[in-house]
């Protein structure tokens, strides 16, 4: 067999094998596409079936977690607020006992009585203090009356009650027939502010 013939035969074989290879490769690619399309379609079909259930599961599981997360944050915030209010109460108590000179407790008491008298608008008032303050302010009632007259513009008679309250400081004030009561104790004022101060506390403690 001539050399040319051999080359020709080899070329025919090569072309046939190349053609076959191409055909098979195209078929494999097409097969892969068929399967990929089926998988996609299967996924779509599955999602149509499971989507509502998945949504319920997610809502149940992550919803509970979100709730728990909010609770954790809320508890932490409350715990810190509580510490602040406790510390503030302790500081107020020290001010009232005269152990903290940053504020003049005598002046505070004058203002507490004055505020109550202004709001109650009565000519005679009964003042209730705690045991310690009662002793300390027993001799200052007339001075308080003078101060009230000056600021309110009319006479207000103050009577220091024999009964006492057990708050850290401040006053409870009644009118004579006890139809009106004004609670102006330090703890009471602090308690009243708990809700109102949350926004400010949040800003001071956690922002920035």
């Amino acid at each position, binding site marked *: *067999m*001539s050399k040319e*013939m051999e080359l*020709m*035969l080899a070329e*025919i*074989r090569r*072309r*046939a*094998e190349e*053609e*076959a*290879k191409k*055909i*098979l490769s195209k*078929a*494999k690619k*097409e*097969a892969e596409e*068929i*399967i990929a399309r*089926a*998988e996609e*379609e*299967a996924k779509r*079909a*599955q999602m149509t*079936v499971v989507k509502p259930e*998945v949504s319920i*599961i*997610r809502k149940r*599981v*992550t919803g509970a*977690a979100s709730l*728990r*997360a909010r609770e*954790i*944050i809320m*508890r*932490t*915030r409350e715990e*810190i607020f509580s510490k*602040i209010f406790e*510390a*503030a109460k302790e500081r107020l108590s020290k001010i009232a006992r005269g152990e903290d000179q940053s*504020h003049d407790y005598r002046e*505070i008491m004058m*203002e507490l009585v*004055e*505020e109550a008298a*202004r709001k109650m608008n009565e000519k005679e008032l009964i003042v209730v203090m705690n045991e310690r303050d009662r002793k300390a302010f027993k001799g200052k009632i007339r001075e308080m009356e003078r101060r009230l007259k000056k600021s309110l513009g009319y006479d207000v008679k103050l009577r220091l009650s024999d009964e006492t309250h057990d708050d850290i400081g401040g006053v409870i004030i009644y009118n004579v027939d006890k139809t009106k009561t004004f609670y102006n104790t*330090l703890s009471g004022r*602090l308690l009243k*502010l708990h809700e*109102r*101060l949350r926004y400010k*506390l949040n800003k*001071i*403690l*956690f922002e920035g």
Partner: protein
Amino acid sequence: MELRTLFEEERKAIRIVEEAKKEVEKILSEARKKAKRILSEATKRESITAILKSEEEKARKEAEEIVEEAKRKSEEMRERAKGRYEDAIRMVIEEVLRIE
């Protein structure tokens, strides 16, 4: 003689290509069968249950992350607040003693 060999080789070449075409049919037929199987399996209860289980697991992990994130945030809050207690206490005292 050489011409016969050439024809013979041509026939062999045609056979190779035809074999390949037959193989194509087989490959595609297998693929179609597999595709059909995939589709019919897809919506069977077992497959759905498996998906739901896997989705629940995903959701559970996400839930754990949500809680962990809250714990981290909570620690950050504590840390940030620590250095600001005094300002907060002072503000509360001022408010309590702000007498009208």
